[in-house]
């Protein structure tokens, strides 16, 4: 188990290297640069040349990349071109906000999906089941920016119930409601369907009949015998769902003006702020790899047939 974990962590090195290489190539392949301005606000050529030299953007690309890597392994991710502050500092400011939003949304998604999926499976073709199907269809088909705008209009503008700009100090509950709910929705929808399907499958298994034949109460049969088996496939989906939350947060943070790294990411791409693009992409890649690793470790704990081996 320890060996396995170490091996998986070591495997992150090539993963992150290729993520860095691809991101670097794509960012520089995109037309334009960090100092482009409107025609009438254009910087004098001399200043632009100086800036380009200052940020090392005049070097050949492979050399830039290697220089970047050399610093990145020492956890020095350079300086933001736009903000003139170190990337580490900027990310340290935004990450807690994004992390809080993401974790809240993931917990909310699980809190909705697990009970709803289980009840839908137990009461197949009932009102609850159709209700959850309706919700799941909406959650997966309507893009979150459409739902977000709808929510902002209804709850923010029309009913004036909830604020919809900014994040505050992270303790303002009312401000978190809309972004968290909207971010959680697609994941909740997907996880509900998975939970329902795997619960239905578990309930039809022979060992559930065996459990009933022992005279166990229905609640014990469902929780001890069916649910534990049904959760195994659900757990594997939580990894990809985390990735979904991260990409979802780009949109949600931008729409609700939340100062997290999702919004930062979008802004820095538009501004060709190469150091921030690189650092945030690497951070996201790192988080997704960690999420998948934790899922694999949890999977081994849930299913005794899976032995994590070195």
């Amino acid at each position: 188990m320890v060996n396995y974990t170490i091996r998986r962590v070591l495997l992150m090195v090539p993963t992150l290297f290729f993520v860095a290489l691809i991101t670097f190539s794509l960012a520089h392949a995109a037309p334009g640069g960090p100092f482009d301005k409107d025609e009438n606000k254009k910087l004098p050529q001399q200043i632009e040349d100086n800036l380009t030299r200052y940020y090392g953007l005049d070097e050949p690309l492979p050399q830039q990349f290697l220089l970047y890597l050399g610093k990145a392994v020492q956890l020095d991710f350079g300086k933001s071109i736009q903000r003139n502050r170190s990337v580490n500092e900027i990310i340290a400011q935004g990450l807690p906000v994004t992390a809080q939003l993401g974790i809240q949304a993931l917990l909310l998604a699980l809190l909705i999906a697990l009970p709803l999926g289980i009840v839908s499976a137990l009461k197949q073709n009932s009102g609850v089941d159709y209700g959850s199907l309706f919700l799941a269809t909406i959650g997966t088909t309507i893009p979150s920016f459409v739902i977000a705008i709808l929510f902002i209009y209804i709850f923010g503008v029309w009913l004036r119930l909830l604020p919809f700009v900014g994040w505050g100090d992270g303790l303002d509950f009312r401000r978190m409601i809309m972004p968290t709910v909207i971010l959680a929705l697609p994941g909740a929808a997907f996880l509900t369907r998975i939970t329902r399907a795997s619960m239905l499958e578990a309930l039809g298994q022979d060992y559930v009949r065996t459990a009933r034949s022992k005279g166990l109460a229905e609640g014990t049969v469902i929780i001890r015998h069916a649910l534990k088996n049904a959760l195994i496939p659900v757990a594997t989906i939580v990894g990809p769902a985390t990735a979904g939350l991260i990409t979802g947060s780009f949109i949600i943070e931008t729409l609700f003006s939340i100062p997290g790294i999702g919004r930062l990411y979008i802004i820095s791409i538009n501004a060709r702020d190469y150091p921030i693009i690189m650092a945030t992409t690497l951070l996201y890649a790192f988080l997704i790899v960690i999420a998948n690793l934790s899922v694999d470790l949890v999977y081994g704990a849930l299913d005794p047939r899976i032995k994590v081996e070195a």
Partner: protein
Amino acid sequence: MPELLEVRDLHTQFFTRDGIVRAVDGVSFTLAAGETLGIVGESGCGKSVTALSLMRLIPQPPGKITQGEILFDGRDVLKMDDDEVRGIRGNAIAMIFQDPMTSLNPVLTISRQVSEALELHLKMDRNESRKRTIELLELVGIPSAKSRLDDYPHQFSGGMRQRVMIAMALSCNPKLILADEPTTALDVTIQAQILDLLKNLAREFRTAFILITHDLGVVAGMTQRIHVMYGGHIVEKADTNELFANPKHPYTWGLLRSIPRLDQTRREKLRPIEGLPPDLIAPPPGCRFAPRCQYKRDICDEKPPELVAVPNAKADHESRCWGTQTGGWLTTTDWRTDTTVFTKVEA
């Protein structure tokens, strides 16, 4: 002897999109305490559904017990509320299922699965039930039972898993064990071991059991009486020796013909029963076996025969066949010497 179990006119049906499947269609039988009974028939003739009905384990919907009485220890199981039925399941009546590979929960340890019923019905605490579980596992012949308590089912072989199932069934000293094809999923050598184990344990504990199988060879040495089922009906009832010596239903003859014999010459081929069991949504109007029966006459297609005593046989020998009833045309036919070749009756 007072009857432990009395089943009267049991009907279990499944309500499907294509129609009502009459899986068990008027089955009656009795079982005394400590008695052993074999229920034999091919797949889809209602054996398993009969067993599941006894414990009210028919999945509902689509299944439903629509008619009949199941008197267990004098009380009708079908009139009990859910709590009372649960009090009987695993306690007074236990069941051993066909496939030990899928009938044990893969994510729970063996000790958890065996001790569950002990804690529930015998009100043992964790320690007592663990101790008892070790005893039970030793009883069913699991080597070094103590060290295997916390193993999971996938760490056991098929035969060992079926032993665990038997330990589970025995755990609360049931009065009746229902064994539904307990050896079908196992290797032949393991089959014999498991059957021996079942037989010895039932004798030791004076447990009545019903052994359900499609293999007449399996019940031969195991049970005192045999009921042959076909198309949701019992078609022949007799005690085991009588049934093998003097079978009185063409379906039973067919089953006997399809068993390989050690004293058979090599040239002889097994003779299978041609065709398939009847569609239980729209069963044949007359005898349900008539479409596959080589001995049938017009009456067989027209009127369903009743289960009646066989003439010149042991008292409790009954058969559901026009031909072997008093005055029938098969009363003197001996299936062993009969040379009529079992030909295809219907395409």
